[in-house]
């Protein structure tokens, strides 16, 4: 199972490298840039300055033309022999290193030049200069460095500071983001560095502490380091062929089933409920279907929110609220069940008597079919638009008033209907506990209400790639997997429950089992709600 996960992640990483890095430049900017890197190695008695100059094609051409004695446009070895040292020395005044505000003298130790091929095989120039400055460090020394070479030309300008047996504090980078101008990050989210100066304090470390030479407060935060995209790149096949599609669907299904095994999707609730109410396979399947539909819709809804309201709502913040809703749902179901069973177990007859006194008469059955219809958001839309004849379109509303003014969410619609539907048109359970479709529906919804983040990411990935249809199928398969697992668990409980009944001695337990299960469901609802509240930050 883990393997599949990993394969998918690898696939997605490949996809990301295609999509997220559409332009790769030899140089971070255009081919006229001049890029510079300065590495300062600070030790107790000296500072070693590692200077790298990387010129793109056009400045390289101009540079070569300036020393091209034979005019062939090439940097011949005879022409470049003295070049690196001369160039390094001519750049030296632009590299200013100050110790306690007094300039330090830089001496050139080594220098070299190369002409790596750039665009179309045209040469670029890479000059390396090593300078050194000796100093006698006091208790605390203030070092500052500024690079004033090529001030106006665009280019990557980087300064890195490394401590060698000293402690340094300041605001600087400790590692090179461009690997000394050999690999420029080419993604959209990394701007070329523009570091022209740096200041820091140097404290010599006592001999005994030497082994623990440290760099303090290095505030170099690589913009690439805090990327956590393991899931942001779901689903992506290069080509959608039939076998690939089937495989993808199978993987989604299995993944969904796996997801059902993780805490939070109400396996126990389902089990407890079905056992308590003596459910049948039919109920388990119905439950599974409800969960599938709710989960799919939930993913779409959250996906839409993420797409269109991302500036206002952070989906992560929405999650605890949704799980709170889910928890309250479960709690409601549990309490409702408990009340029903309490009533029907004989202890509650007085409640019924009380109710009849109040004149609450039984209402006609609510139509499950009508609910199923109003679940479909598209359908609902049509409904709202054709306000003039919707009442004659064959849809029976449990309540006739103001039906056409409803343009709320489906959820609301449900509640609205169910609040008025006291009675079930299903036969009561064998033990007399009313086995209502509506509580089953509510249970299914609670199981699927909380969209699984990975499914959401799959959907968003699909939208990003303009493969919405594919994404929908995958999410559906995922939801089916989820529901399938829940259904299977439900069936297991049902069979296990039937096994129980074979032992006559357990009769008493069976009598109170429905109430126990209802209590259990309520407790789980409370637990989920509390957890969600703590997630929100209220608890």
């Amino acid at each position, binding site marked *: 199972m883990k393997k599949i996960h990993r394969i998918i992640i690898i696939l997605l990483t490949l996809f990301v490298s295609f999509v997220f890095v559409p332009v790769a430049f030899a140089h971070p*900017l255009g081919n006229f840039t001049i890029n510079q890197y300065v590495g300062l190695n600070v030790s107790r008695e000296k500072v070693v300055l590692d200077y790298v100059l990387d010129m793109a094609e056009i400045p390289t*051409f101009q540079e070569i033309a300036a020393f091209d004695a034979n005019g062939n446009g090439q940097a011949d070895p005879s022409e470049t022999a003295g070049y690196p040292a001369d160039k390094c020395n001519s750049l030296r005044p632009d590299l200013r290193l100050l110790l306690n505000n007094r300039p330090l003298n830089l001496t050139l130790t080594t220098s070299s030049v190369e002409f790596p091929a750039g665009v179309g095989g045209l040469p670029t120039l890479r000059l390396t200069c090593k300078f050194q400055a000796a100093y006698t460090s006091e208790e605390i020394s203030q070092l500052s460095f500024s690079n004033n070479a090529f001030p106006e030309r665009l280019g990557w300008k980087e300064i890195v500071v490394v401590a060698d047996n000293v402690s340094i504090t300041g605001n600087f980078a400790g590692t090179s983001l461009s690997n000394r101008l050999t690999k420029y990050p080419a993604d959209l989210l990394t701007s070329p560095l523009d570091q022209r100066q740096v200041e820091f304090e140097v404290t010599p470390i006592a001999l005994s502490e030497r082994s623990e030479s440290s760099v303090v407060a290095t505030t170099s935060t690589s913009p690439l380091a805090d990327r956590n995209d393991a899931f942001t790149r779901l689903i992506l096949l290069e080509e959608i062929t039939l076998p690939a599609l089937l495989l993808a669907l199978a993987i989604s299904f299995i993944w969904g089933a796996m997801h059902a095994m993780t805490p939070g999707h109400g396996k126990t609730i389902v089990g407890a409920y079905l056992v308590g109410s003596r459910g049948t396979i039919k109920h388990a399947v119905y439950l599974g279907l409800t969960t599938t539909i709710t989960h799919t819709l939930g993913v779409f809804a959250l996906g839409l929110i993420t797409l269109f309201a991302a500036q206002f709502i952070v989906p992560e913040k929405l999650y605890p609220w949704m799980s709170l809703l889910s928890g309250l749902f479960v709690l409601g179901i549990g309490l409702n069940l408990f009340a029903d069973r309490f009533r029907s177990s004989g202890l509650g007859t007085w409640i019924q008597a009380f109710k009849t006194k109040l004149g609450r008469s039984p209402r006609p059955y609510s139509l499950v079919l009508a609910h199923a219809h109003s679940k479909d958001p598209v359908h609902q839309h049509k409904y709202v638009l054709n306000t003039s004849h919707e009442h004659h379109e064959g849809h029976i509303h449990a309540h006739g008033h103001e039906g056409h003014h409803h343009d709320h969410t489906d959820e609301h619609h449900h509640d609205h209907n169910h609040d008025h539907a006291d009675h079930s048109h299903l036969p009561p359970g064998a033990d007399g506990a009313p086995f209502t479709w509506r509580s089953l529906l509510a249970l299914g919804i609670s199981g699927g209400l909380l969209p699984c983040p990975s499914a959401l990411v799959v959907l968003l990935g699909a939208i990003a790639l303009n493969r919405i249809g594919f994404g929908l199928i995958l999410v559906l398969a995922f939801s089916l997997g989820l529901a399938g697992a829940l259904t299977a668990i439900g069936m297991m409980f049902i069979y296990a429950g039937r096994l129980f009944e074979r032992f006559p001695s357990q009769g008493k337990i069976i009598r109170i089992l429905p109430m126990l299960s209802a209590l259990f469901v309520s407790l789980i609802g409370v637990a989920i709600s509390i957890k969600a509240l703590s997630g929100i930050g209220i608890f």
Partner: protein
Amino acid sequence: MNKRKTILLLFFILAILAYSRSNGSAVDAAGLPNAQDINGDALASIPPVNDAIKSFQDRIRRNPKDAVSYTILGDLYIRQARETGDVSSYQRAEAALSQALDLLPGYAPAGALLASAHYAQHNFDQALELAERVYESNPKTTSAQVIIGDAYLSLGNYEQAETIYQELGKTEATPPVLARLAHLEELKGNPKEALHLLRRAAGDALRSGGTRESVAWYLLRVGDMYFNIGEIKESGTYYEASLRVFENYHLALAGLGKVRAAQGKYDEAIAYYQRAISIVPQPDFLAALGDIYMLTNQPDEAQLQYKTVEYIGKLAGINKQIYNRQLANFYSDHDLHLKEALRLALAELESRKDLYGYDAAAWAYYKNGKFEEARVLMDQAMALGTRDARLFYHAGMIALQLGDEAQAREYLEQALTINPHFSVLYADEARTTLDTLQAAETK
């Protein structure tokens, strides 16, 4: 108590008025800018483009599905490209905007910006197609409409461009629309109207507080127009104002180089061009600098600049960049690779039939000794009645080669009347040719 309040209020109003006047002296009562008084201090509040880019990169890193942030990032990359002259920023803009459109298909602002990035890279057909699609699905996107007009203009469909610009001008006479109406007037040979519209655009931009670069661009364009009608001094004041508003603005530096060269201050001209080139080595800057070196007897320096232009041409061939026409004109002007010049100019004319495309091809034909072909294309270039000295000079030289001396004299006279400093290389030649023609006639 009430009295004191009234006095305070009056004082407050006066203070605001005084403040706004002190700020508004850069713009006169008619809303036109006074170049000398412009410094752009009132524009300081907009953050530099690089800072803005970083903050939106952070936002996207936190929420990688944020299509709106991607759109703004794309917009900022376009701004960066304009400010720095670095064409590769347009590619980044395209990538960011495509990302936005992937996340949120049909998002009109991203579509319109993507079209403008295509346009800036001279992918006119692509820009036109995308902008039309955006505009059809969302007719409120005036920015898309502007791009449609621009693309038509660049492709030489002047009538369609004019219809669109005028329609836009009726509903929203913002600086961008005014600048385009001005350009249209310029092409139609009405420099006075063009200048008035453009100065209005610059004044509006200055008052409404756009980015420094955008205000500097309007001022630069005013400078260009003054230069093109031969008002060199006025042109210089606008270029200077542009440079004050936006420090190190490469286009304004090059403009000042052009002005100083026209005034015969070659050392200053060289210094300005060198500054512009140290920021971004654009081929037209390098060529102009080379020309001044030639004029001041420094052929080695000149050759170095010319060779760099050719080198950029080579790179442009590899990168398919946007300098084809500039290169064709450079080759023709300097009698270099004339066959290549003709090839480039004709290839460009294939996809883009605007008047400067015809002019470039005509001039390349002329340099290749094909005067009849040159004349046919030159007539097309002048069909709109554009009063551009360079066009008249080209037409005059072509007429001369075809033996039509009267026509040639008229054209050359026109060229020198419009702008006696139209070219460092050719203004003198135009004068001497005209002198010989006039001398021949009086004989």
